[in-house]
């Protein structure tokens, strides 16, 4: 049986632009403020009354020919057997070559120790509201709503000086679960699966509709496909 080769289809016709995927990703992966492993492009065009609004969810494209992988000097950015583009912090020197190489802007670097807001001792309203540090202390974790499951395959909270990116929830895939953005989409707009299985919902969706990818001209062969339109 052929090896699994993971991919994702985002059905823009089903997407309602609610950003549930973005928020789900933040909570599942303990993503710091200002970082967006799951992100979106908003495009507005036209002149009233002929206007158009388009919402395009984005994430790491887990490119087949990933420039972040090709240019990484230590193989910290690497391809998994299933085709996922993963980052190994133990091998990373923090040179940021991956960030300059990625045409999609989906890799983020921890310039400062992440989640600084939860170490802040000042309260929004002194004597009335709690400080970030007090809230974190009350939660019993370094950050409130910390998800320890994230740490099964990647550091739960990433180190200062190092990049971080979407792993397609590889910790969930390892347990046979779907990425959390897929599970959390209220419209069922995300289809995740094995590109090598012609019977998978993913392959069927790709066969039925004309799939598109972001910046096809870059030749990176993205594995996140878009079908239909918003």
């Amino acid at each position: 049986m052929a090896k699994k080769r993971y991919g994702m289809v985002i059905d823009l016709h089903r997407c309602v632009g609610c950003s549930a995927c973005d928020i789900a990703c933040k909570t599942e992966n303990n993503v710091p403020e200002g970082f967006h492993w799951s992100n979106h492009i908003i495009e507005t065009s036209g002149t009233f009354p002929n206007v158009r609004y388009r919402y395009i969810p984005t994430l790491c494209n887990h490119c087949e020919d990933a420039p972040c992988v090709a240019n990484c000097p230590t193989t910290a950015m690497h391809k998994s057997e299933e085709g996922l583009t993963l980052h190994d912090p133990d091998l990373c020197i923090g040179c940021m070559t991956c960030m300059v190489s990625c045409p999609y802007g989906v890799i983020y670097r921890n310039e400062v120790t992440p989640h600084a807001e939860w170490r802040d001792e000042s309260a929004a309203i002194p004597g009335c509201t709690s400080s970030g540090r007090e809230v974190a202390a009350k939660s019993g974790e370094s950050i409130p709503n910390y998800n320890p499951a994230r740490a099964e395959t990647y550091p739960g909270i990433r180190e200062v000086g190092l990049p971080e990116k979407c792993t397609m929830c590889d910790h969930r895939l390892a347990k046979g679960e779907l990425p959390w953005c897929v599970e959390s989409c209220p419209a069922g707009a995300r289809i995740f699966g094995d590109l090598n299985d012609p019977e998978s919902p993913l392959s069927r969706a790709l066969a039925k509709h004309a799939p598109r990818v972001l910046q096809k001209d870059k030749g990176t062969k993205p594995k996140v496909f878009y079908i239909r339109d918003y």
Partner: protein
Amino acid sequence: MDPEVVYNIQAGPYWDWRVAMDLFLGGAGVGAFLFAIGLHEAFRARYRRITQTAAWLAPILVIGGLLFLLAKLGRPMHLWLTFTRFAPTSPLWWGGIFQTFFVIGSIWHAWKWRIEEPDPGRRRLGWVLTPIAIIVGAYHGLLLAVVTARPLWNTGPTVVAALLAFITTGIAAVMLTHLIRMKVSGRLVPGEHLDTFLTDMRPVGNILLAALTLQLGTFFLWWLSLSFGDLQDQQALAAANESYGTMFWTVGIGLGLIVPLPLLAFITWRNGERNRLTHVRAILVSCLLILIGGYFFRLAVVLGGQAQLPVPTLS
């Protein structure tokens, strides 16, 4: 109405002035080394002191550049991982390997210059290190040129400009350091020695003039390829020009190339009676301008290449 696109990603630039400093010093170091080899081949022991200056300057500049790069790394203490992993598709990996060979070899080569007598081993080492030096010089351009995500960098002239820049900045760094060394040791006085030195350095002036002219031509080609390239090329040029155009055109090209050209031509080609010290001052000013321009051209390219471009969508 043009489509308005909003996409919140981490603001750049991800590579800053320290990377530009690495490219500048690394390139100048390689240039200094090749200048040392060239001088020795052309004049043998006649210009031992300047060859010595060039030979020592080479590893010092490359190491200086690497220190700036280390300062930019998120985990500089893990740099050794570059040598334990095999990443042949990464120019940075190759650069790390070849730069290490070059630094060790060039220190050894410079160390061999401490003795007065001709040393065949030193000459052989110089020849072995020459291709490595050229690879390290080319790497300083390839590092940017292979990044397909950055249209400003992803061109052939990027590599050519880097190769030419290492010749001009390398020679300028050596000449500047050597003239300072002469001044400090009290040897920068009008006389026969200075006359011979200035006459012998004429071919160097011609090399510099040729390299500066070629560099100017390369920049023109670079501009042409981007101006008449596809939409993303044009957008990249416009974005870089908007934020770093003044730095590139005024300091990098104007001060670093256009001003030194007539100055050097005047020094190199003028025959007859000359005021030797004015001549030396003109060399100093030209070299200083080439170095300042060489750094700022790289800074403008490194930062300009990371300027925010309009976000391509599915349309």
